[in-house]
């Protein structure tokens, strides 16, 4: 069974046409991989459907706009996967 990171990397590669070997856990989806906000909607859609969750993009965006969080906290892939795991755990609890 694929890990969360493997599944997310596959989604990013498919939706954004980025070679899989360039997608590593320490990369920031926006600043390192060059994904834009529209592409990220496709990614969020695919992640939501794949894991049966709802990534709280509105809340994250609000926190970023209010400087309550940094982009890295949500969009470095290892941290994004941690958040996804938390959402999966909350769903299954």
């Amino acid at each position: 069974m694929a890990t969360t990171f493997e599944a997310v990397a596959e989604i990013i590669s498919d939706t954004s046409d980025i070679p899989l070997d360039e997608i590593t856990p320490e990369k920031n989806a926006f600043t390192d991989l060059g994904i834009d906000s529209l592409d990220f909607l496709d990614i969020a859609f695919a992640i939501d459907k794949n894991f049966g969750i709802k990534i709280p993009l509105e809340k994250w965006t609000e926190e970023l706009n209010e400087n309550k969080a940094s982009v890295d906290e949500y969009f470095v892939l290892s941290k994004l996967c941690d958040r996804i795991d938390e959402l999966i755990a909350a769903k299954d609890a």
Partner: protein
Amino acid sequence: MLLEYFQMIDTVEELDPDIGKVIARAEVPMESPVFEGHFPGSPLVPGVLLIETMAQASGFMLLSRLEFEKMPFLANVSSAKLRTFVEPGEILRVEAELEHDGSGFAATKARIFRDGKKICDSHLMFRIMAFPNDTLKNNMLDRFSQINQASALTL
């Protein structure tokens, strides 16, 4: 339909905002300035306006679901198929259903039928954002009250 004003939906006939489904009617006018250019001597509804028609049906369903507190803006069109020409005077049935209710975005599947036969379909994605001003919000509410004949929703 008033093509030149981008009023694509004439009537919302069935609407279930909770499930996320809408059925609407659109009647292609016999005359429109759009047909003067598309195409001279051979009037056809432009394909982009058929996509817009599917987007507007989806949009009214999403607006109802959001209770007109936020506005869905079309952000992504994928797998659009325009299977045949659409000519003046034709009656279209437009269906849309919610595919995914995300955070700050929504995805729908939409189709257009003519005489029971599917002639267009597409997957659409919308960004869900605050209304930029009250003028747009009030315009959406007014327009919806004009076209809504579905009994399932009262605003």
